[in-house]
């Protein structure tokens, strides 16, 4: 759960023209029609359920897979379900040039790894980062390796707060140690 280096197969969220999809909002990730669901285990099947071309993602993905997405991922609402649906599918991490602010902190608080890599759009455009590649992410040193291509690129290392919350297994556990100080 709290490994600071993980590996997995990647899915690159492209549109029908083969471009990285930007500004994917929380209604595309987890539509507001399903907000009454409060059980994490039941959220997975709705993941990306309103994103054209990716509605079958819950059937395609496997535990440990890593998502590569376009900038401003998770724009829009504050719903935690848009993070929890990926936890439900046991996705390993999400990698993006940038995230919506609320989305990013929701993920941090859930102990779910979200990492930023500014070179991602360029790597995708150049065909160096493709669906099916095996990637290894080092959260603390900030290195990402594309194992099958013997390539690496930088990601922004987790901040102290992010890595502390992540290693504690989420905000609640972190808070319990912190309030005892």
């Amino acid at each position, binding site marked *: 759960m709290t490994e600071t280096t993980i590996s997995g197969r990647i899915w690159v969220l492209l549109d029908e023209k083969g471009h990285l999809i930007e500004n994917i909002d929380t209604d595309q990730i987890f539509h507001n029609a399903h907000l*009454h669901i409060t059980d994490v285990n039941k959220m997975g099947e709705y993941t990306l359920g*309103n994103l054209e071309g990716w509605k079958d993602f819950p059937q395609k993905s496997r535990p440990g897979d890593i998502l590569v997405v376009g900038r401003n991922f998770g724009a829009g609402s504050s719903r935690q379900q848009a993070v929890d649906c990926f936890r439900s599918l046991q996705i390993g991490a999400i990698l993006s040039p940038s995230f919506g602010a*609320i989305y990013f902190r929701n993920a941090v608080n859930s102990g779910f790894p979200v990492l930023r890599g500014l070179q991602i759009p360029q790597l995708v455009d150049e065909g160096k980062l493709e669906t099916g590649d095996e990637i290894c992410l080092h959260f603390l040193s900030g290195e990402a390796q594309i194992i099958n291509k013997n390539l690496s690129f930088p990601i922004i290392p987790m901040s102290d707060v992010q890595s502390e919350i992540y290693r504690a297994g989420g905000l609640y556990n972190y808070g319990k140690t912190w309030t005892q100080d």
Partner: protein
Amino acid sequence: MPKTVIEKIIQSHTHDEVAPGKIVWMDLDIRSARDFGGPNVVKNYGREYGDEPVEDKTKTFFTFDLCVPACSLKYAENQQVCRDFSGKQGIKVFDVDQGIGSHVLIEEGLASAGTTVVGTDSHLNILGAVDCFGQGMGDVDITFAFKTGKTWFEVPETLRVDITGKSPPETTAKDLTLYILKQLGTKKAALKAVEFFGEGVRDLSLAGRITLCSMVTEMAGIIGFIPEAMPDSEYANSVSIDVSGLTPQIAAPSSPENVFAVSELKDTEIDSGFIGSCTNGRTEDFAAAARILKEHKVKEGVMLKVVPATRRVYRELLDQGILETLFSCGAIISNPGCGGCAEGHIGLTGEGEVQISTGNRNFAGKQGRGKTYLASPEVVAASCLAGRIIRPEDL
């Protein structure tokens, strides 16, 4: 160098050093949850903290505004879960009759200048309109805030936006907001606080300030402020936007930043209109629409939906005869809440339907399968009379 508005507010709520990029632990004056998110907060709270009391029940609230009164069993049960928790904890609920939580917090004086407020509403940064630190957060954050009264926060950089020139009198706060959104897109203000300067924004009423600050969310910004003082802080970037030639603006499907002059999209046929939301749900928004609709009828076949932001706004609309005007022109008037934006209240669109709305989001699928345009109350009203997108002056 004096601190920016957001830095000053955060500094008055933390002992940590405040500077852009620093993560601080800050004290919260108000923490709230809605009928979406709220049930998750209650569930999380029980799992993590059992029956322990919240940190300060006088600073903790529920605001029901999304599915009000509940239109399905699931939502009814979720709201009751929050009421039961509130009863045990002694927390006040602004229940299904009260309207949009962020607006209720302003009206009640709970969100005021220099205070810090969080809740499960991604448009809570609307509170920047009253110089308050407001942030929407997810249910994990809010559960933690209920228990501890604190949150972690990365101090954002601040973008300075100078609005130059004077916008023509026939334009509105929404036109100004959409035009600024067009200029800033979702990149220039991304993850930043924004300070708006210039006569064009300083002269805005509270309703106008709410309109502008609400859509900082759509600019991907953290929060927007309209400071009284002249800019003297250190800003990460600055942008200047001339509004002297402003005309009525409209955002086309399916992104709020996809902004055009209304004249560029004129004669696009519409099936329905919506006036309301946290962006344009104040009394003066409906009064502006009523001035255009008065003694006219909405075009046959067009459905106009009206949702006041709060019960207080509803009262004012009653007292000022505005509801009479809206009713007589053919509008459907609902009780206060988030209808028109969130699924659960009124205002979904069917496949092929074209809607013009005063809301703040028109993402694909957000309000149903139809297409949604975003504009001012005046443009929505005029378009509902004409049955097609039109500027009020061209009626």
